[in-house]
């Protein structure tokens, strides 16, 4: 058996930090997009800002205790070098501070003071690139090692960003569905919000499908280390059932089809968008479960496989 040097804390960190960074990035982008947006879009920005920093902090807390020397974690800030972990740590620290401030700016619903609206925008400008950095660096970190053929691919970073944005969107979707204003006069605004979220998430899931397809196709067409490594998730491999059921079916195909089912009537035929609470919750939960399964598969598969020749 191979040794798993990185276990559940790392998997949870990748999932939670990706989710949180994704939610803040989505929130910031929605806030910064000028014009054409209904007032209620503020809700997306607000919920994303409020829920985003929490999972990032939780994941960071967990990963510190995966270290052999948790109480030395601050050594990371004694220097900065070209290690993806070093750059990522600095980005993560900045992100936690700034997204925390960004969240605080959203505690009052209305920007009653003019400076508050300005502060939100400035922080959003900072949080969007930082959120993407936090989402992407973990993929670069894993992808940088020729010793780990399953990870050693630039496309992994792309997959991580897409999965972070889509789990972040799903988290906002879930929050809006559960805690959003449900009164009749807000109905239209709320459905507008859900339409934006659902259609963006469908796009992101489509992107994930494409990246996973490319990953599998290249791995399958090549020979040697990468081919051998990817066999753990191909039918017959030890992680195949979790990958195909958990990631592909529950995490991507089911929510993707459901989202298309909701979005297409409005997108193509201009009908009114109808959302249902049950569907929103189910779709969001399956995206989140799939996001976790994806991180699990990738972290484990990378460690149980290795180069085939000495």
């Amino acid at each position, binding site marked *: 058996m191979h040794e798993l040097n990185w276990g559940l804390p790392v998997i949870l960190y990748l999932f939670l930090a990706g989710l949180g960074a994704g939610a803040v990035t989505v929130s910031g982008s929605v806030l910064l997009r000028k014009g054409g947006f209904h007032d209620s879009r503020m809700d997306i920005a607000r919920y994303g800002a409020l829920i985003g920093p929490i999972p990032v902090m939780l994941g960071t807390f967990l990963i510190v205790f995966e270290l*052999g020397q948790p109480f030395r974690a601050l050594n990371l800030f004694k220097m900065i070098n070209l*290690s993806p972990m070093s750059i990522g740590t600095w980005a993560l620290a900045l992100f936690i501070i700034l997204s925390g401030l960004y969240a605080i700016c959203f505690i009052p619903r209305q920007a009653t003071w003019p400076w508050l609206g300005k502060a939100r925008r400035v922080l959003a400008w900072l949080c969007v690139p930082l959120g993407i950095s936090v989402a992407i660096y973990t993929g670069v970190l894993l992808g940088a090692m020729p010793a780990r053929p399953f990870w050693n691919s630039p496309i992994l970073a792309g997959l991580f960003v897409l999965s972070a944005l889509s789990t972040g969107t799903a988290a906002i979707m879930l929050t809006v569905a559960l805690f959003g204003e449900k009164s009749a006069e807000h109905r239209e605004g709320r459905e507008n919000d859900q339409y934006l979220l659902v259609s963006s998430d469908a796009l992101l899931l489509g992107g994930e499908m494409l990246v996973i397809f490319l990953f599998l196709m290249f791995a399958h067409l090549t020979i040697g280390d990468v081919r051998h490594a990817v066999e753990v998730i191909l039918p017959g491999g030890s992680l195949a059932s979790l990958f195909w059921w958990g990631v592909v079916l529950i995490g991507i195909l089911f929510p993707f089809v459901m989202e298309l089912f909701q979005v297409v009537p409005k997108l193509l035929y201009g009908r009114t968008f109808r959302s249902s609470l049950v569907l929103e919750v189910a779709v969001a939960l399956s995206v989140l479960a799939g996001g976790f399964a994806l991180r699990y598969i990738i972290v484990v598969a990378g460690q149980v496989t290795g180069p085939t020749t000495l």
Partner: protein
Amino acid sequence: MNDQEKPDTSRRGFVQLLAGGAVAATAASALGSLAPAGGAESTAKQSRIQYGMLIDTRRCIGCHSCSVACKAEFDVPLGVNKSWVEYTEKGTFPNVNRHFLPRLCNHCSEPQCVAVCPTGATYKRPQDGIVVVDSGLCIGCKYCIQACPYDARFLNPVTNFADKCDFCIHRVSKGLLPSCVNSCIGGARIFGDVNDPESEISRQIAANAVTVLRPGKGTEPNVYYIEADITEQAENSDGSYRVRVTTHRSIKERR
């Protein structure tokens, strides 16, 4: 042995000061992979000592003296090894054979463990090319353990730092041979400066057909082998002959 004789890895700060300021040196090493090395650095790279090892597997009898000597030298905890011997058994009776492959850190010239270390705890000593872990900086993040293509590193279960072979700096700096070389009953291990063309190791490397492990990973190992059998168990799949690799480690499979 008292503590003072242990390798003093914290002297690196001093070395960097010599190299023209600790900050400049850190920046230079950080940017080393971006910018082509300057003239001064490349000459330094050629002229300095690079310790290496040549393992003549024809002389190895698989006795594990090296593994035991290394364990004793460093009090390496149960379940982990800085030095180990793998057995490769292959063939179908009566055409069978068993080869021995002693393993240790390769003190690579392009060590990926160094490239990924976020704290600078793992570094290649400029004076002798030995790759070491500064236990004062290491946070135990295990990135280097993941990145080493030879599985030469482990998290020391007692100290919780990344750990591995350090070419017995404490012995070598006093003119002694590394413990595993000293104890090898077959005389299979030659230790020395591979950058010095007059050294025994350089002459043997020139005179024999030698290989390094996983040359394709680009790490440029400094542990050389004569007649290393690198057959893998995965080659068993077509069933034409049997292969069994025994690593003699708690990590049962090669990676």
